[in-house]
C-alpha cells in the first residue's frame, strides 16, 4: 500500500514516527520528509496506524492502491483486526 504525504499539512507532531520510526522519516526539525511512502505488505498495519495517528491529517492512506487495505479497513470496522 501507499501513503500519500501532504507535506504542507505536517506540523511536526511526530505521532507517525512514534508508531513506526522505520516507515516515517523526519527531517532535522522533526517534520515528515516529502514524498509518498510505499509500504511493504508486512508493515501495513503499523503504517496505517501511524497514518491514522496524525492529528493534522497529513498522511492519507491511498485506498486505491490495493485491495488488501480494503480488507484491513473492513475488518477494523467490525473490530476484527487489532
Amino acid at each position, binding site marked *: 500500500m501507499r501513503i500519500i504525504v501532504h507535506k504542507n499539512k505536517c*506540523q*511536526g*507532531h*511526530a*505521532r507517525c*514516527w*512514534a508508531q513506526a520510526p522505520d516507515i516515517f522519516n*523526519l527531517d*532535522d*526539525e*522533526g*517534520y515528515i520528509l516529502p514524498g509518498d511512502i510505499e509500504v511493504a505488505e508486512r508493515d501495513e498495519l503499523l503504517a496505517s*496506524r501511524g497514518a*491514522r*495517528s*496524525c*492529528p*493534522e491529517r497529513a498522511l492519507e492512506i491511498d485506498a486505491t492502491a490495493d485491495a488488501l487495505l480494503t480488507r484491513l479497513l473492513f475488518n477494523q470496522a467490525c473490530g476484527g483486526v487489532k
Partner: protein
Amino acid sequence: MACKPVPDHVPPEMVKDFSLFTSPGMERMPNGDPHAAVACLHDAPPIFYSPNNTRDGRGTWVITRAKDQRRVLQDTATFSSHRSIFASALGENWPMIPLELDPPAHGVFRSLLNPLFSPKRVMVLEPVIRERAITLIDRILAASTSCDVMKDFAFPFAVSIFLGFLGLSDKERDTFVGWGRDLLHGENVKRTAAALAIVGFIDELAAMRRKEPAGDFMSFAVGAQVNGRPLTDEEVRGIGVLLFVAGLDTVATAIGFDLAHLARNLKDQQLLRSEPDRIGLASEELLRAYSTVQMIRVATKDIDFDGAPIRKGDYISCATMIANRDPEEFDCPNTIDLAREDNRHTAFAHGPHRCLGSHLARREIVIGLEEWLSRIPDFRIKGGTAPITFGGHVFGIENLILEWS
C-alpha cells in the same frame, strides 16, 4: 477590560453563561473534576459567546467541536495569535515568540527553534530525564510511605529538567515556580509583579550570555540569525519569556493529573504496572482526557462562522479540554480508555503553533510514569486528604497526597 461584557453585535440567544474561570466546577476545590465539568458543553451549541472567559474578564466566542477548532487553528489569516497577552499585562506591546506571531514570521522562528526540540534531540536527553526521576523517587521511598506528588516529585522533576535544558541553575527553582504560578493563576497585582520579574530575569540572562556565551539555550538565542540578521533584544526576550512560561509547570501538571487518575482507578494502575509497554499509549489518553490549555485567537476581520457573527477584534477560544471530549471525534469521550487507539487529541494544539516542547513533554511524562510505577508499590490517595484542582486559562492540580504500604 473596558469593553461591555457582551458587544452589541452578539445576538443575545448566542450568549451562554459559561466561563472557564467562573462556571461551576472551575473554582479551586478539593476533589474537583474541571474536565468533566466542561465536557457537558457538548450538549450545547457548537459555538456560543461567553461574556467572561479570560483572566481579565473579557468575553470570547467559544468553539466546542474539535472539527471547528481545527478550522480556526489552521486559518491563521483570519484567526490571529497576535495578542501580546503577556506584554499587555505590563502595558507593553511585544510578542512572545513564536506563540504570538502569525505565519509567515512565525515559521521563520519555528525553523530556528525546531531542531533544538526535535524528537531526535529529545531522545538524547532520555538518560538524564530517567536518572532525575529515579533520584527523586528513591528519595521519597527512603523517607516515607506517603508524599505530596506535586511538591516532592512532579514539580522538582519537570522544572529541573526544563531549567537544565535552558541552562539555568536548579537552586532558584522555587522562585521560578512561584513566578509561574503567580503569572498563570495569580490576581492582577501578583501577575504584574511576576511578569516584571520574569522579563527582568530573562533580559539579564540574555545580557550575560551576550557578554560571555555558555553553550546553553540563551547563548544560542543571542547568537542566532533569522533572515540573515541577528535577533533583536526584543525577539530574544520574546523567546526566552515564552519558553519560561510555557515549559515551567505544564509537564508537572500533566503528571499530577495522570497519577491522580491512577490512584483513583486501581485497575488502570494494575494494567500499567503489569504491562509497562502500555504506558506510552496510555499517556496519550491521559493527555486527551486531562488536557490543560485554552488557546485564544483574535479575529482579523468580520466573518460569519456557522451563523455566529464574529467581528474583527473578537476573541475566539479553542479550549483543548473541550475539543478533546467531543463525542463526534472520540467514542465515549468521557470514558478513559488507556488502550484507546487513533487518538488524535489536541492537548499539544493543532496547526502551526503545535507545542514546540511536545516531544520533550511526552518523554518526561512517559518516563515519569514508568519510573513511578516500577518503584512505588500500589498507591492510593491518602485517607483524609483531597487533591485540589482548578479551572481557568490553564487547568491545574495543586497537591496530590498519595500513600502506599
